[in-house]
């Protein structure tokens, strides 16, 4: 769906995106993570032909961008750096303007447009919206309206930059469910976020940006594969340490980190010896841990 090679963008002296090779396959839910100012938004803008690359290639749905971007954009729904709208008009009118501004739709006229708009509003939870102007909307409502705009043309690819900005926890959950539902119906989802939990809960593949470079690109499953260690919580920690002799890598009070492949055998072993086990699970690395290990501070931090 998306393939970039050696993609580089320089703004004056600043290297915003530096030799990036992103690969998004059809059907992916791709989460692009990175600190603020790491180049995520610039990458998204380049994918949409808004910003022109300094060097490198972009291919979206098999077409070169920006040369043939007009051919792929009708099949892309996009949300870039927050929603935008005409504040003095209603949400419905705003969607009408954006819908009419694009290339002529193949199906239907006015009635079809109204149906499309109603369907999109319904999907993002604004089905009952009245005629108040967009400037009276809350941040969350604007975000939903922006998403509705992205969904208008039932796109094959959704490119969403920080899609849950301004939403409350329930709203975030709704949008996540919506994106998963769309993805299962065949839409490829590419989203960028600085929220680890959002990406961790949604994405199937993860890319991590740091200071303009793509420092990691991997499926979430691989990243979160068991590490070959087991975390055991037990009130009889000292006995367990003695029993496991040397295989305990770390002990924090009643929490033990044990080098062992299989939690269930380990559990049986401990219990057979009379060690009470409160909790036992394979150790998995959190995305947070992985990302913090490989990225530096965001560009909004200025150290002396």
């Amino acid at each position, binding site marked *: 769906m998306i393939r970039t090679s050696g993609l580089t963008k320089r703004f004056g002296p600043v290297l915003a995106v530096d030799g990036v090779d992103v690969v998004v396959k059809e059907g992916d839910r791709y989460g692009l993570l990175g600190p603020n100012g790491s180049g995520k938004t610039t990458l998204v803008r380049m994918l949409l*032909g*808004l910003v022109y690359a300094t060097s490198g290639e972009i291919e979206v749905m098999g077409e070169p961008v920006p040369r043939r971007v007009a051919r792929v954009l009708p099949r892309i729904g996009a949300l870039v*750096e927050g929603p*935008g*709208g*005409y504040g003095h008009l209603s949400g419905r009118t705003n969607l009408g303007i*954006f819908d009419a*501004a694009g*290339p002529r739709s193949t199906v239907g006229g006015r009635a079809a447009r109204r149906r499309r708009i109603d369907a999109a509003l319904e999907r993002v939870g604004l089905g009952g919206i009245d005629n108040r102007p967009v400037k009276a909307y809350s941040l969350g409502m604007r975000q939903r309206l922006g998403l509705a705009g992205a969904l208008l043309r039932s796109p094959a690819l959704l490119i969403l930059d920080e899609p849950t900005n301004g939403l409350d926890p329930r709203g975030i959950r709704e949008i996540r469910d919506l994106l998963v539902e769309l993805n299962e119906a065949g839409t490829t989802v590419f989203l960028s976020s600085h929220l680890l939990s959002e990406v961790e809960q949604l994405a199937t593949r993860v890319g991590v940006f740091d200071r303009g470079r793509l420092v990691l690109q991997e499926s979430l499953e691989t990243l979160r594969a068991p590490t070959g260690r087991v975390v055991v919580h037990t009130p009889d920690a000292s006995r367990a340490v003695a029993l496991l002799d040397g295989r305990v890598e770390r002990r924090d009070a009643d929490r033990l980190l044990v080098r062992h492949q299989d939690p269930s055998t380990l559990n049986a072993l401990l219990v057979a010896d009379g060690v009470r086990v409160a909790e036992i699970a394979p150790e998995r690395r959190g995305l947070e841990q992985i990302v913090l290990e490989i990225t530096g501070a965001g560009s909004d931090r200025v150290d002396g």
Partner: protein
Amino acid sequence: MIRVELVKLVRRPRTWISIALLCVLPIVVAAFVAARHLAPAPGTGPAFLSAVLRDGSLYPAAAMAMIVPVFLPISVAVLAGDSVAGEAAGGTLRYLLARPVGRTRLLVAKLISLVVFVLLAVVAVVGTSYVTGVVLFGTGTPAALGEPDGVTSLSGVTLSPWEFTLRLVGAVGFVVVSMLGVAAIALFLSTVTDSALGAALGALAVLIASEILVLLDAAVAIRPFLPTRYWLAWVDFFRDPIFWRDIERGIGIQAVYVVVLLGAAWANFVTKDIKT
């Protein structure tokens, strides 16, 4: 896209507020003149105003003379300056372009909607001032005007109402063309900066500079190339016979400004990184 731009123009309260303000000025002037029955002496004050007392149906011409030098260009500069920069600042530009709307198409649609705005504004001013003139001053016989210094003596030839209307249409058309230069300057600046205010003020600065230079004898060499030089040539439609020379030059110079600045706006806009 053109239709979309027109919808945006029509549904924007600001459009109608500026048109209303343009219409109000001539009405206020007419009220004063009618109340005191005291027009400026021939050759002073806005063109045509001294002839209006005799014939109210000439008042649209006087009204145009009031709005063309300052107020109409201000409103055009504000709208044109906002056209791209305003979309950029409001965050809608990126969504229009991602829809996709071709960048060239967007610029052309913006320019056309500006032309429609000028046309709407001038027609509104002509309409309201005609009504104002006829109500306050009554009608007489429309007459052609005399010398370039604005003397309103009759040149002997009487214009039929039909002919007067035709000439008014010609004058309105010329005023619209005259505003294209301002529109192109502001539109160009609007693609350069993301500040609508900056673009509008920049265009106004160019116009004020031009108006100063037009009056400066030392700058006579560049006078024919200044955007505001022929702005008042629409008056020539009311001479008999119509004095075409300045009208043609006015149209020519506006065409040059439009082609050059629109070309610059296009070249800048299609290669620009949209970062807002």
